[in-house]
């Protein structure tokens, strides 16, 4: 019984991280019709920037707030300087472009941080393990479960209850709707891409204390996220939540 609880919590903690990545991947496919190969690298970027923020400030919490917008801004910048020009081409060009971007970003991170993994300590509050009726369970993982649920609910509320969310859902369901958005379509794409990257960045920051920040973590996560997204149905954000259950 205790074992089942432990396995369940493990699955939830990982699913929380994976959700942050696959939700963005799904969102980008839904709105931009782009399979973003570089998405995992934004997750990695989040982890490394998280390391830097913790190193500079000595605190973990600011990283959770500061890093996602920064990653989102970098993503939006890349979208508007490269992807924006090739939406009319066959999908393979966009996929390969993001492949190229992934190479560039991954190597840039290596230049800046060196080849060694960067460890990030969890905040003191979340260090060590807690006794859950006979099971010693890491506090930080429990935090990941909570974080995953919170962000999941927040994204769901955003999509269901706000006007912007309505537009996004409409476009995701019917790609021709993008044309109806008229002049705004350029901005919507950039914002969605940026938001998706920010989610991935948040996932990266949250993952760092558990897995450390290391090169190749982006590639690892993107494969899992693809699986989640394909199982859940490409382009459906709710689907990527459901796909987590594995």
């Amino acid at each position, binding site marked *: 019984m205790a074992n089942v609880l432990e396995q369940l919590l493990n699955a939830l903690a990982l699913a929380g991280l994976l959700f942050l990545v696959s939700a963005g991947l799904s969102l980008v496919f839904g709105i931009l019709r782009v399979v973003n190969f570089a998405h995992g690298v934004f997750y990695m970027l989040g982890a490394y920037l998280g390391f830097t923020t913790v190193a500079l400030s000595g605190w973990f919490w600011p990283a959770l707030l500061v890093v996602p917008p920064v990653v989102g801004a970098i993503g939006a910048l890349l979208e508007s300087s490269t992807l924006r*020009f090739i939406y009319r081409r066959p999908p*393979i060009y966009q996929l390969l472009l993001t492949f190229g971007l*992934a*190479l*560039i970003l991954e190597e840039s991170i290596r230049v800046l941080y060196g080849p060694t993994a960067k460890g990030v300590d969890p905040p003191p509050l979340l260090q060590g393990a807690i006794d859950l009726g006979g099971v010693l369970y890491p506090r930080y993982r429990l935090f990941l479960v909570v974080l995953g649920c919170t962000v999941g609910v927040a994204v769901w509320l955003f999509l269901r209850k706000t006007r912007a969310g309505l537009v996004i859902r409409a476009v995701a369901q019917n790609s021709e709707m993008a044309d109806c958005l008229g002049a705004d379509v350029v901005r919507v794409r950039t914002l969605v891409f940026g938001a998706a990257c920010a989610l991935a960045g948040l996932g990266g920051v949250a993952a760092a204390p558990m897995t450390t920040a290391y090169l190749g973590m982006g590639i690892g996560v993107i494969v899992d996220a693809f699986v989640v997204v*394909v199982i859940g149905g490409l382009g459906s954000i709710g689907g990527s939540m459901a796909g987590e259950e594995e």
Partner: protein
Amino acid sequence: MIPSRLWALAALVALAVVPWVLARHQLSLLTDLLIAGLFAMSLDLIMGYTGMVSFGHAAYFGLGAYASALVLLHFAQPVPVALLAGALLAGAVAVPVGWFSTRATGIYFAMLTLAFAQFLYTVAYKWRDLTGGSDGIAGVPKTALFWGGPSLTSPHAFYFVVATCVVVSLFVCLAVVRSPFGRALQAIRENERRFTSLGRDPRPFKLVVFVIAAAFAGLAGALFAPFRGFASPEVMFWVFSGQGLMMVIMGGIGTLVGPILGAMLFILIQEVLSSYTEHWMIFTGVVFVLIVIFLPGGLVGTARRLGARA
């Protein structure tokens, strides 16, 4: 404009003459470029002519490499036997994979081929008794050209084997894309629904071309194993599949010759840059991104457009 027959003739003469001009390491490099070119060209057959983007083409290169390595190492057969074995194994494995994958289209096809390729990679990685696992199979010899014939260990001899294979493969592929079958493939690429409504199910066509492309990739792999002297799971990894796609785009999708040049360019960039800096990946990435944005036709496509305009 110079007619393409003249270009072809010039290229053939150049391929025949360069070994006597080049230094030894340049000849090795050229052999390497040709093998990569054959791999990229085989990918273009499905990607450029049929519109099927495979994200797992490296698996067939790898299958060819392993088959060839095992034949040469354990049975000491002449090189052509190993080449045949490589092409056949890759083609044979592509039959069931293609049968499943061609049920999907577009990005789903890409993901399915990727999944199958990763599965094959895992098999190569884990079946240590046969494949040597992560260590691979080292010490693959360059045997003779035929039973009792002279050994191909000299760089020149092996270069000519590779060059012959690449040239013959190119002509075969050119003939295929110009045949009734090849024309049907291009119609599938252009408009699959229209194709269906004109009286044929596209799937058998896709399956056949998938198998042909895999066999040529297998041939490239079968040349690679004796040339480099080993086979290892890395050559089946999806990164290599992705690089294959990059080579095709850089050289010019749907031109067959373009991907060969694209592969050469890709490896040359890597070769030159990696002597200056270990951060060569960034530059390769930048060059690639620029080509995707500004030269969607790749080298050959752009050259043709300029030629047509002039």
